[in-house]
């Protein structure tokens, strides 16, 4: 008896240690992610008084937005702020304090409101990513000058602007409203999020009806014989196939054979459909199996046809389980990057996709691309994108859990 007790105690202890290790690693993962990523939700902005001079923007009386010298305006304003920067070298260094995005911001402003031409506007424009990194403490100002991306002079100017209240840390809206960019301070995840949304729409529209139909057929109509056993084994196997294989299949079938465009959310959605179908079929079959046979028998006994039994009774009762399966399948599809690598979605795409055939990336692929960028400000943005992705996954999985809890029936 004491030996059995001891054994039980050891086993319990092992289980507790295993759980604790799991929780500790998860905690470390989240802590490092949040520690690194939250600063990306803020971005340093610089206040400049910019004279939208007609002489500069429209020298021959005509304003051509594509060729107007908005950079020049930003530079003039910056020079007015720091007059002691003289000489070509100093000025070049000075211009690097402000992001190239400032000129784009001016252009958009004038495009929306041409009446502003000739006025002086006080605007908050994004500072360059190196200044942002300095303010956030990711660049150490105390190390040797040659070793850091900002010179002593640049740091001096930044401190001067800071003292004048012209430097401010604000919410980084660009992160959510912009597409990808090679300038960290302008890079956003909107393009990737939209790409993921389009892909999931295609996946949902295809895999849910097909999956549910297949599950109903296999459970309710198909004869039990060797063939149906074979199909069942195959479906279970498919669910465990590494996702990159589906990417290769998609490349061969959808792109090379069906000649669909590379990097399109449509193709991504089709590939993810293949990936989620087995998951949805399995979950749907389990949900159908869970409907007690007494319901079917009662309906059949009252004279309902097989189809009526399925659509009037079994399906409504099994639907919550099926939806849960579908959502879990979708959240797996959302986090997938490997199959998308094969169909050309590892691409730099600035424009936010507007249709199923526009080139697009997906959130996980965007994370992959940012993680590999040399500019250091992308490190925190990578973490921020991961936080957003995890947020989406959490919401989807929570929905699945709530659906199950709400609609589940106990027999």
């Amino acid at each position: 008896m004491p030996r059995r007790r001891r054994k039980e105690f050891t086993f319990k202890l092992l289980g507790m240690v295993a759980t604790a290790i799991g929780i500790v690693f998860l905690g470390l993962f989240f802590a490092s992610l949040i520690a690194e990523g939250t600063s990306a939700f803020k971005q340093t902005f610089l206040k400049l008084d910019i004279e939208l001079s007609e002489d500069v923007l429209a020298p021959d009386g005509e304003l051509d937005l594509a060729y107007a010298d908005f950079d020049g305006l930003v530079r003039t304003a910056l020079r007015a702020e720091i007059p002691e920067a003289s000489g070509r070298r100093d000025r070049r260094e000075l211009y690097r304090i402000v992001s190239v995005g400032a000129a784009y911001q001016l252009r958009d402003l004038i495009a929306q409101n041409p009446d502003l031409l000739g006025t002086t506007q006080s605007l908050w424009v994004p500072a360059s990513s190196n200044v942002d990194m300095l303010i956030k403490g990711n660049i150490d100002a105390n190390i040797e000058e040659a070793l850091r991306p900002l010179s002593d002079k640049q740091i001096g100017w930044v401190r001067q602007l800071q003292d004048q209240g012209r430097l401010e840390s604000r919410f980084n809206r660009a992160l959510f409203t912009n597409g990808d960019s090679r300038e960290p301070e302008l890079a956003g995840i909107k393009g990737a999020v939209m790409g993921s949304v389009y892909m999931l729409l295609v996946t949902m529209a295809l895999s849910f009806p097909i999956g549910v139909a297949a599950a109903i057929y296999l459970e309710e109509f198909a004869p039990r014989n060797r063939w149906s056993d074979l199909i069942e084994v195959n479906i279970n196997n498919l669910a465990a196939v590494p996702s990159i294989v589906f990417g290769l299949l998609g490349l061969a079938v959808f792109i090379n054979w069906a000649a669909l465009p590379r990097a399109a959310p449509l193709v991504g959605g089709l590939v993810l459909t293949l990936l989620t179908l087995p998951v949805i079929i399995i979950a749907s079959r389990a949900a159908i199996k869970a409907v007690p046979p007494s319901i079917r028998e009662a309906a059949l006994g009252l004279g309902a046809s097989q189809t009526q039994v399925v659509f009037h009774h079994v399906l409504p009762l099994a639907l919550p389980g099926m939806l849960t399966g579908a959502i879990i399948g979708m959240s797996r599809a959302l986090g997938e990057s490997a199959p998308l690598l094969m169909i050309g979605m590892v691409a730099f795409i600035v424009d936010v996709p507007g249709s199923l055939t526009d080139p697009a990336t997906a959130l996980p692929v965007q994370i992959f691309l940012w993680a590999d960028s040399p500019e250091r400000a992308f490190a925190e943005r990578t973490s921020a994108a991961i936080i957003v992705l995890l947020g989406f996954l959490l919401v989807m999985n929570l929905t699945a859990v709530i659906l199950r809890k709400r609609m589940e029936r106990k027999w």
Partner: protein
Amino acid sequence: MSNHRKSLSLAAIATIGLSLSSAAFAQSGRDYVYIVGSSTVYPFATVVAERFGRGSEFKTPKVESTGSGGGLKLFCDGVGVDYPDVANSSRAIKQSEVDSCAANGVTEIVEVKIGYDGIVFANAIQAETMTLSRADIFLALAKEVPGKAEGELIENPYQTWADVNPDLPAIKIEVLGPPPTSGTRDAFVELAMEGGCKATPWIAALKSSDKNRYKAICHTIREDGRFVEAGENDNLIVQKLQANPDAFGIFGFSFLDQNMEKVKGSLIDGVEPTFDAIADGEYPVSRPLYFYAKKAHVDVIPGLRGFLREFTSERAWGEEGYLSDRGLIPMPDAERKQVATAVRDLTPLSMAAE
């Protein structure tokens, strides 16, 4: 419920129909430049693409990172809107690729050399700066090294840098580098390893007599754990070097440039990997970067001509252009001018010389 189901499946059918029709539409024209290729050129091509897209009335080009070989394969698959307009490459196009291009109707290719990239052999900033020769690198990393007798090869016995060369510190050899699929690895093997390998006269003699054996000796990296394949992510290598001051990493100059306070490059053959040393060609481990454009697509794909012009403009690839801020080492003035003229005239590549 059956109504519900019907509408669901209707919606599904509508979606498929819609997407197929819009797919057919997309095939008929493309209003953006489509670029594929090397992940080394990717950071530069994307910057140009973005500046071009924002600064012109054209859409921003799409840049896909496929690797040099994969990119050139896609590029050579044919002429038409379905195929890329530009392929980036961290090496010159091969004759076999030109042939496969020609077989698919891609006959006029414009070669554009854009500048240089240095490959650095770096360690953590707090560690001692190393001065290595290419021969040291070869002896430390090759699978088989020359033995005492001439013509003899032995399994690499060196465990510390001092074993390789008594002038070097007695720390364990531990090098993190890219996997064989990477263009950086190819270039490192060709420039650093082969360069050091040639220092042994009887191996150098093999080059003309038994080319395959020569390559096998010079290009094979040891597999006993002294060289660690650290994946394509250079940021990861930088992080690992910080954590382990005894380790060395192999990566592109742009990552050293961005992480000067964390890592430093070793001197190779007495030359420090600096911007100027690479630009002058003094630093031995540097390679030219290229992109290739299809002449047949110019003026068919909107923006392609403009993109070529932007890439070869002084404000992009010049001495003080925005690409040099990203770590691209510019070519000398005369060479830039020459390439820019060739691009303007769209002079196609002729491989007859080879």
